[in-house]
């Protein structure tokens, strides 16, 4: 079967699939969105602090953050697996092979992305705002928060980059989740499974669904940013 025929067959299969597909899509979104939320809570303050702060070794921190954006998902997966395994330090938590482990792994993976991109955005804005804010008597943390709030819509870009990475990766969630049917099976791990079973049309169909979801999220974010730009300038 050619590529297009496989894709068409895949989409037909996907359309006729019942509850399982939506369970898988739902879990994928739940895991990645949770990870993005946690990664933003962790990464945003770090990014802003590094952007605004002046401390020895700052350059090294910036370079490190940028480098960590390229953390290989399988390596993160392996590290978290060793941590969460019963034979490992956090074993008693019993988190291995649960969606929780997948959220943890993805959070570790994308927090540096959000921190690094946020740092860049805040640093650019800081050069613009800092002096005027200081003249008005706004300094330090208060000034940083003012700037963060002002550029909140462009921070959306950093968050989206993190979400894109999380939805697309398979290495981390496969290792720490175990791809358990009905429990930790997400879109990307299902694609791996169906590919390895030789069911390429279904794998392609799922891939198309994944891309469509990511596209939709990006389109939504674009619209939000446009509306904000018109409203706030």
């Amino acid at each position, binding site marked *: 079967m050619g590529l297009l025929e496989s894709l068409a067959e895949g989409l037909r299969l996907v359309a006729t699939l019942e509850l399982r597909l939506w369970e898988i899509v739902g879990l994928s979104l739940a895991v990645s969105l949770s990870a993005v939320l946690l990664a933003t809570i962790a990464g945003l303050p770090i990014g802003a602090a590094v952007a605004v702060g002046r401390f020895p070794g700052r350059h090294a921190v910036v370079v490190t953050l940028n480098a960590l954006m390229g953390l290989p998902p399988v390596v993160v997966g392996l590290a978290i697996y060793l941590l969460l395994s019963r034979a490992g330090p956090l074993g008693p938590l019993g988190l291995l092979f649960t969606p929780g482990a997948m959220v943890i792994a993805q959070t570790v993976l994308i927090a540096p992305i959000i921190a690094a991109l946020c740092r860049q955005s805040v640093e650019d804005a800081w050069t*613009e705002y800092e*002096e005027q804010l*200081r003249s*008005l*008597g706004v300094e330090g943390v*208060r000034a940083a928060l*003012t700037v963060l709030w*002002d550029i909140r819509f462009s921070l959306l870009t950093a968050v989206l980059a993190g979400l894109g990475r999380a939805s697309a990766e398979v290495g981390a969630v496969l290792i720490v989740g175990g791809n358990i049917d009905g429990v930790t099976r997400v879109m990307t791990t299902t694609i791996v499974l169906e590919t390895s079973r030789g069911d390429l049309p279904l794998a392609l169909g799922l891939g198309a669904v994944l891309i469509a979801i990511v596209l939709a999220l990006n389109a939504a974010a674009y619209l939000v940013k446009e509306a904000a730009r018109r409203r*706030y300038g």
Partner: protein
Amino acid sequence: MILPLRLDDVSFAAGGRTLIERVSLEIGAGPSTILLGANGAGKSLLMRLMHGLLAPSSGRVVWNEPQNGRRPRQAMVFQRPVMLRRSALANVVFGLKVSGVDPGEREKAAIEALEEVGLAAAAHWPARVLSGGEQQRLALARAWALHPEVLFLDEPTANLDPGATREIENVIKAFDAAGTKIVMSTHNLGQARRVGDEIVFVHEGRVLERAPVDTFFKQPATAEAAAFVKGELPWG
């Protein structure tokens, strides 16, 4: 009264170069003071030292009353206006909020300030869609709303066309007439004459001359000032 402001032997160096050299100056209440000089003479640096945005490398900057790290009774308008991504009104309200004005009074005071500069109609527009001249007027409104004793202005019309420039100068003169001490830097001779009462001539990081505006332009005391007035000084 936070005036007079005294600079005692103030120097400022950065990157291994001395940019402001041993300036001693007293700025008193009353006449509007123009820091005049070519681009790169050090006017902006000197103003930032006065306003406290920079710390001198040596010497002291002393106000009549201690500022305690806050400077609500001074305000500064920069060459490029910096507005938050909010409405014009909200930007003025922001300035009032961080100065500790009561929530109930902020909006009223902000609207008054906008009326003073002729921007009342644009109150609810996003500040960043206003033109350069309008944003600069907005910056003036934001500063004015704080009722500062001293208003610093760093080349406020350098980026504006003649029409907008005149509007800004009129607003500044109105504030001056209402009793705010104006300290403004410019390299524009005409503007210095229109707005200023006294000239502080800055050249290569030093204050070379200080005189009432008419005296300065009719009879500059130093060769550099004379050259500048004739338009013969190189651009920094």
